[in-house]
């Protein structure tokens, strides 16, 4: 499952197009709460992400984080009880990212423009929420990845050596509605994301395209004493087709990557290399919302399954590679205003565990070839304080723990890595009669421990396309971000804003350097303009 890059948040250092960083921005940063409900959210997949600073609180451009069955647990039926107000936003932005501190399948440069709009409002006996986004991204600086999201849990991916610049257009549209029927709530959310990418100018052109529809259905029941319980089911499908061709005499060399075995390059001089990835996933979840200790609490749990099949031709030949995962997710979130509305505290803890196994049709007698057990615990807190009518501040803390054990049974090797990622962000905002101003900054540390294979015993393909990624994940890093926002109040509840941001990521000083570890730093700047309307949370 792929997501658009939220390029307007200064803290998200995005490897747009590679997709990996974007998922992290969506699922592990507190600023992503506005999209947590999406039916397109990853199911039974924990992509490997770049260690980036958290999103800033966005005091002037977004409402305060919400807690609810819809917003936190992704049960659209919760909207029947949670959507009493109205919100709408529109954003247009541009971001540029570059630097050598990257993984082999991340592009060296990313230039991205985006249009997006989202909103929610009451509708009849319930409420609806939805959004649409369009992103056009230029990928440069040796973009070797064939697939759009090469660093998913699945070990099956591929690279080619042309490294030509690419352009990619991604669109996402999603919506949810919840309707109240007596003490019951019924909900439906649907979403669709699609992309189309191609090399700009290349003797060995590369194309990739795909689509991913998804739907969530839910039901909730309001019990006494403000308790609401619910259940939901999610289903997703995704298709990605990629090809590398050589219309002239040039040779396209493609490296199929399948875990930690030595990749062997395959030359395609006629016909080209084709790959089709078909996935489907489903999940069932239970959730409950209640009030306790003067706070609104939401707890949820979800079990999920995902299967991915890859075939090597466009025709309906049988899939050659198979990847199955099972996932478990549990979470709890709470929001509590203090001292009237002067303070608002929101906290969220989510734990996700995914186990997966890969098989190949050609090696059926070998059984499972690759297995992975990955877990992530993400906890974040958001504290907002209205110091004075014109002054507000927000603090965010984030702690993330990742444990990844990925083992290649053919190569007889793998990784066993644990990562701590503590992060903090702060933002202050001044609001005048018309003009408002906000300044924020964030910092995050990435501290790994564990073991990865020694790359010296592997071939050149491994050292080029696999080892640097493992070295980067095993490197302590520091990332930080800063953003400045100006906002102008129009008539009514409409606000226009402009935001510029900067973020950077670099390895921390370490007592030793890993072989093939990427060096240098990676930085990103962004600028965005937008409007918000009928925001009841920010004056």
């Amino acid at each position, binding site marked *: 499952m792929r997501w658009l890059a939220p390029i307007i948040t200064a803290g998200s250092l995005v490897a747009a197009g590679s997709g990996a960083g974007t998922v992290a921005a969506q699922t592990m940063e507190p600023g992503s709460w506005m999209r947590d409900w999406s039916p397109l959210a990853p199911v039974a997949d924990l992509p490997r992400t770049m260690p980036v600073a958290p999103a800033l609180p966005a005091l002037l451009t977004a409402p305060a984080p919400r807690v609810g069955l819809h917003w936190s647990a992704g049960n659209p039926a919760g909207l029947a009880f949670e959507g009493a107000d109205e919100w709408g936003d529109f954003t247009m932005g541009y971001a540029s990212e570059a630097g050598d501190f990257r993984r082999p399948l991340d592009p060296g440069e990313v230039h991205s423009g985006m249009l997006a*709009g989202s909103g929610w*409002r009451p*509708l*009849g006996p319930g409420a*609806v929420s939805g959004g*649409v986004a*369009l992103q056009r991204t230029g990928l440069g600086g040796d973009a070797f990845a064939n697939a759009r999201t090469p660093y998913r849990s699945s070990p099956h991916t591929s690279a080619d050596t042309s490294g030509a610049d690419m352009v990619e*257009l991604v*669109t996402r*549209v999603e*919506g949810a509605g919840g*309707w109240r029927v007596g003490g019951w709530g019924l909900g439906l959310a649907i979403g*669709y994301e*699609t992309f*189309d990418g*191609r*090399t*700009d100018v*290349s003797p060995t*052109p*590369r*194309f990739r*395209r*795909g*689509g991913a*529809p998804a739907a969530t259905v839910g039901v909730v029941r309001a019990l006494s004493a403000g308790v609401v319980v619910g259940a939901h089911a999610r289903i997703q*499908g995704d*298709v990605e*087709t990629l090809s590398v*061709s050589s*219309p*002239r005499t040039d040779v396209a060399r493609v490296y199929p990557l399948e875990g930690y075995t030595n990749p062997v390059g395959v030359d395609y001089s006629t016909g080209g290399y084709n790959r089709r990835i078909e996935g489907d996933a489903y999940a069932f979840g239970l959730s409950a919302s209640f009030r306790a200790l003067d706070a609104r609490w939401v707890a949820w749990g979800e079990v999920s399954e995902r299967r991915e099949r890859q075939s090597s031709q*466009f*025709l*309906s030949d049988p899939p050659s590679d198979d990847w199955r995962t099972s996932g478990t997710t549990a979470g709890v979130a709470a929001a509590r205003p203090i001292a009237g509305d002067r303070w608002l505290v929101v906290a969220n803890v989510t734990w996700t565990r995914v186990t997966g196994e890969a098989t190949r049709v050609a090696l059926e007698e070998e059984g499972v070839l690759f297995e992975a057990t990955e877990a992530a615990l993400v906890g974040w807190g958001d504290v907002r304080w209205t110091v004075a009518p014109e002054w507000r501040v927000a603090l965010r803390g984030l702690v993330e723990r990742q444990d990844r054990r990925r083992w290649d049974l053919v190569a007889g090797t793998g990784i066993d890595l644990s990562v701590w990622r503590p992060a903090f962000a702060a933002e202050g905002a001044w609001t005048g009669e018309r003009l408002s101003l906000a300044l924020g900054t964030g910092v995050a540390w990435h501290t790994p421990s564990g073991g990865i294979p020694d790359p010296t015993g592997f071939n050149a393909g491994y050292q080029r396309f696999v080892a640097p990624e493992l070295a980067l994940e095993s490197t302590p890093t520091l990332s930080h971000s800063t953003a400045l926002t100006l906002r102008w109040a129009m008539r009514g509840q409409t606000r226009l804003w402009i935001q510029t941001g900067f973020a950077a990521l670099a390895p921390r000083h370490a007592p030793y350097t890993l072989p093939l570890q990427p060096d240098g730093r990676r930085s990103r700047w962004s600028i965005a303009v937008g409007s918000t309307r009928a925001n009841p949370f920010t004056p």
Partner: protein
Amino acid sequence: VHRARSSVLMLLLVAPGAAPLIAQAPGAPEAMVVGRVADAETGEPVVGALVVVEGHELGALTDSQGSYRLARVPAGPQVLRAERIGYAPVRAPVTVPTRGTLRQDFSLSRSALRIEGIVVTADPMGRARGELGTASVVGREAIANQVATSLAGVLELVPGMPMSAPGLEGVQQVSLRAAPTTVTETGELAAFGTLIILDGVPLSNNANLQSPPAGIQFATAARGGIDLRRIPASTIERVEVIRGVPSARFGDLTQGAIVVETRTAAIDPELAVRFDPRMANTAVVAGRALGAAHTGAVSFDAARHRPNAGLRDDEAYRLSLQLMHRGTWGGAAGEEGTPRLVLDTRVDAFRVLDDRPVIPDDVTAFATSIRDQGFRLSERARLRLGEDARLQLTASLDMTRQRSFWQTMRTSAATPFTDRLTEGRSTGHFIAGPYLARIEVDGEPWMGYGRLEYETSLRWLGASHALRTGVEARREWNSGPGYRFAMEAPPQISFDGIAGFDRPRSYDAVPALASTALYVDDRATRPFGREGMAQIQAGLRLDILHTGGSWFSGVRDQALQPRLNVEVAPVPSLRFRGGWGRTAKLPSMGRLHPPPVYFDVVNVNWFADDPAERLALLTTFVRDPSNAALGLAMADKAEAGVEVGSGEWAVTLVGFMERVNGAFGTRPEPGWVPRDRFDLENDAPGTGEPPRIVEPPVRTDTIPVLVARPDNNVRLDTRGVEATAFLPEIRPLRTRVQVQAAWIETEQERGGPDFGGVSQFRDFQLSQGQARAPYWESPFRSGRRALATYRVVHHQPTLGLVITGTVQHNLLDRVWDRAATDTLAFAGYVTREGDMIPVAPDARGNPEFQDLRRPRTGAFTELRTTPADWIMGLQVRKSLPLNGHFSFWAFNLMDRRGYVLEPNVHPRPYPRTRFGLELVIAPATLLEAVRP
């Protein structure tokens, strides 16, 4: 009052058929419809709104209170439509009583997306204006909701039409009620027989001569209908697809008629921008009143499509511009009457380019380019003659400048070649080695068209009649340099020493095509019982194809075409319909006046190392393939159907049978040419000069040849069933389901012999020892298709949101050529002199026919089907502030591949996933919003 009057004139353009508002005849079974038109947001009355009865030329304007009054509305199920500049039109199905008064109020909204009950599919209750035959009516909202670049995309809303991705790549044609067979000719014939009428004037492809010579492939619309890329979807207001028996007003068709109304009318300016990874499209539509009696409008569309971006620099683009002026004189533009004279002047201009340039470093240097540009000037004058009659004069001049080229690198073995244009023997030269072959086809088809029509309403035999009669004349011709290539670099290299190269041909010398027509048509309406209503539309049309290029040059062929449609509605919610009629189609100029066929028989082929010693002697024979008997193709159409439902829901079922007799094909006609063989002298190498021919010839061979002569020898049979179900809205879910399905079987049979594959006859030509060769009866080709399209439409007027999910289910695709292939299948034999001798079936096993008993080639007789499969699309539209809207669309959203190269499966590849966005804004509203 002045403003309201101006508005009326502008609004009349939205519904041209309603322009001169003609009241019903006195005494007809009629009722009065009254009501009020109000602004949906404010509740204020809407002054000057036009309320019309669809399918009838009857309408009224709202007064200062927003009230309207339609007198003498025919009883029965009718559809009322209210419209006003700046508002989205609203339609309301009603059942008009036989007498009394019916009240119907309207609420108009600035944004159609915020109106209850908008129809975003083909309207199941819609009626083509003045027509009783089966028709699909596609309104503006459905067009806006459709992912379409041109008219071809809009027509996907018609039952039986497959979904396709939007774009400008390749020629776009439409084949109504036809299933594909194993040959493209079937689809081309169906497209050729589909009439397109744009703003009241027919478009014609009869004079298109952009056909490449045999063996050369480039995209061309010459053999089919017009290239629909020239009609942008963004500028279409309404499309009526008459699939059943059309009224006698429509001629030059076999399949059906598509009536297109553009948006060149007095409407608020609108700017639309559409973008997807392969295409960009911008459209502007605007119109305004110019004083009390004049209205001007303009629409512009520009689209660019790069279908293979990243791989090749192929590019297609389209520019389209339409200008319109309407002037009115006499009468009052209000409730009391209509202008006495209305003059519509339209200028349409377009340019469609489809380039496939050379790929850098590509050794084949292959490239093609199709560039069409043209203009059309049309004038329509409507003169009101009293209360119930009018006279309408339509005239147009249509010109298209067509430029096509094709090139590729050829490598020729030493091939003797002559460019002689007349019969006789001449010395030729040799072509050898690699060279760049290039052809250019430059033509300029023109059409002059005129129609004079008289309409009146009267009452007779207890029924109200809408009677019209008219005369039509058209002249089509082509000019320009025509087909050209450099003689030193001919495009064809597969030369067998007999078949000649096509010679360059100027189109200036091709005679024109002239035709005239007379028609009379009456539509009678009569109530019966308590609520019943019967309608009969009967007409007669005479089409005349003239022998020369003028209307006074005699009759080459003529066709009298009776047409009848009947509709009986015992109750308003149940209608039985039936129709039978005959239609005729003019042949194309390419078939009427085919280019001469050249046979260049090689007498001497002496290719020496020294070019000075080479000798090529060829005898050129010229055969005229034209057929003086070629005439009109005739189609017999019959259909019967039933419709059940009201405006909220409807189910329709139509069965049809159509037979086109004398459709246009070619008949291979055997003949022979002599080849003289000579002895040579002075043929030793090193002389520095070519050998000399020794006369007389030592031998003369007889070489059989085939001349493909255009003929009315194709029979096209189509039968099928079309069904639509427009289910009522599931109110709590704000969701409606529409299903349309079609099962169509087409059979094509070509009269005349089949000489097998090309190589089989060529072997006969070249083998002097072979005295005869078998021929067979032509294969019988059939195609069967079943297609169902399900649309789920979710509409939230409060949000201004419409979500349309479309699933097209290919239930059946089957093609089958029926032809006997056993060794006794031959029907006879042809001698070397071209004589055809039939052999009785019971004699084919005789020993003297041993040499004829050989396997047949060139006929595909295997039954091939494609498994059922489906494809899905999605469209999301959301209103924006200030009268704008935004939409997202995705085609084949699961990127399904279909069937491409499966063994024993007829291919049905699905186009790859496409998606895009569209933004529509109203500049005037924006300016109004920011104005201090």
